[in-house]
């Protein structure tokens, strides 16, 4: 079997020639074309290392991972399960066929709390192995201590990657004086920048996360019970690549995001509850573009726009394609 290890320090990857569904499903150009990266079997077995960190024992780590896996497993519209296979001395990151989660110290990664890597089948894109390390350069807590990052919240985010989800841009940030960005607010666990120390909000999935995992691992009737919206983002008569498109359900208040994924500016947001939506388009300027796409050419020089039509998403189908025109900054 041909295998290739793809390490996703911040889950950069993606940018394909054809639109994929919402959020970012991780994909790669492999033999035979672009493939979505996802598990082809369930339950997915995972191991926990024996490593502990300051304030978190190995047992607490395992229990916290179990809870975070359970959060994704509990999504009723997604069909994926997990099984704890035991403790191991093997560190995360080894190409050994085992999916291992554990603490590791990476002082060189002074802005990376955790990272997820994969081994995938280069023919099908099926995940063979996925490892996650949590960087002990930072302080961790399982109880929401105010001076440490919440392990369960970050684990929930990384397990999203473990499942094949990329980052979501449903969040707002501000530049910090010392460099880097600080999150003001977010509407997705898969937003690339973690909440501050002591904040446990990301323990719970949000509609964007639920849509992402449900489209990737749909239960039998998910496609019939939900719908999608499709369109193009245009600037001066040309398509925009990498524009962030947000669908807001006017009844439920749910937010689900996606991107225009090619030079024509085409986007497709799937897994939406049937109903009426407002649409907002914004540039990818609340996080580093390379944590979303590994291709250059992301145009961020346009103004945020609210689409002037209410979009009706049908059950079991898609909207007609519509164009959202934005203006240059």
């Amino acid at each position, binding site marked *: 079997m041909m295998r290739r290890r793809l390490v996703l320090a911040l889950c950069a990857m993606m940018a394909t020639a054809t639109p994929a569904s919402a959020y970012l499903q991780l994909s790669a150009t492999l033999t035979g074309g672009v493939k979505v990266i996802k598990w082809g079997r369930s339950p997915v077995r995972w191991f926990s290392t024996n490593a502990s960190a300051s304030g978190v024992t190995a047992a607490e780590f395992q229990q916290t991972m179990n809870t975070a896996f359970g959060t994704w497993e509990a999504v009723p519209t997604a069909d994926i399960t997990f099984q704890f296979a035991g403790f191991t001395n093997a560190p995360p990151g080894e190409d050994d066929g085992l999916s291992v989660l554990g603490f590791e110290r990476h002082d060189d990664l002074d802005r990376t709390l955790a990272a997820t890597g994969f081994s995938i089948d280069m023919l099908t894109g099926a995940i063979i192995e996925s490892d996650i390390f949590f960087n002990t350069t930072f302080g961790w807590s399982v109880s929401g201590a105010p001076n440490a990052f919440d392990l369960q919240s970050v684990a929930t985010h990384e397990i999203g990657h473990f499942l094949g989800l990329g980052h979501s841009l449903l969040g*707002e940030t501000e530049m910090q004086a010392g460099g880097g960005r600080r999150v003001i607010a977010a509407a997705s666990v898969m937003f690339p920048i973690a909440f501050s120390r002591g904040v446990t909000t990301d323990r719970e999935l949000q509609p964007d996360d639920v849509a992402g995992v449900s489209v990737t691992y749909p239960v039998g009737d998910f496609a019939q019970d939900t719908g999608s919206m499709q369109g193009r983002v245009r600037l001066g008569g040309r398509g925009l690549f990498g524009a962030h498109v947000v669908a807001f359900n006017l009844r439920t208040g749910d937010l689900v995001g996606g991107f225009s994924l090619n030079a024509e500016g085409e986007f497709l947001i799937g897994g939406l509850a049937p109903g009426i939506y*407002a649409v907002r388009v914004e540039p990818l300027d609340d996080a580093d573009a390379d944590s979303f796409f590994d291709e250059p050419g992301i145009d961020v020089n346009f103004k945020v*726009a609210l*689409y002037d039509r209410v979009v*009706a998403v049908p059950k079991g189908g898609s909207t007609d394609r519509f164009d959202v025109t934005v203006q240059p900054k």
Partner: protein
Amino acid sequence: MTRLWLFVAALLAVMPAPADAQARRTQPRQPRIEVGVGAGTLGGLSLGERDASLKSNSTTAAPFRLFATDTNLDPAAGLEVRLGYRTTRRLTVEGTLALARPTLMSSLSADAEGAAPVDATTTLTEYVITGGALWKLSVNPRRRWTPFVSGGAGVARHVHDGQTLIESGVDSYVGGGILYSLKQRVGLRFDGRAHFLNGGIAEGEGVSPRGAAAGSVFVLF
């Protein structure tokens, strides 16, 4: 002598004369089927104000508003077709089909990053099919005006442009109005109603009230 005349008069009163009985049997049948066609206005609905909110990076702060929305179904003119059956002089059971093309508008504003506010719109077709009853408050044949009250329930279907999304709800109504007789079998009808929509375009809003007014021509068969 006086007593005899009284007795005869009483007999005449309680025993219908053969000639009178014959006349009743040949009286024309009262028309019972009523068909009406008209136009009116179906009132608007508030579908609620909602913020597109993000969770704040704090254990205490309020949600962060990305933008605000205020969604309404605008009032719209429509057509109404009605078929009724007069079960008694006062009571008519009837079925009504009303059609309208209202605009659904959501005002999007207060964007956190300064996007220009817009009124996002779409048009939908609304079908309201109801069954109900009309009760005449008076039945004086010498008066052309007859006030009535009415009530009923049925189904409201909202078909969005492109027919990509069809939503159904329960519509019930109470109302009243005036019947005005133009000729023996033709008249005008003026309705004022309060409708209560549960579901459909108002899904999630509970029972949503709105007004309606209609005028129609009816013919009796």
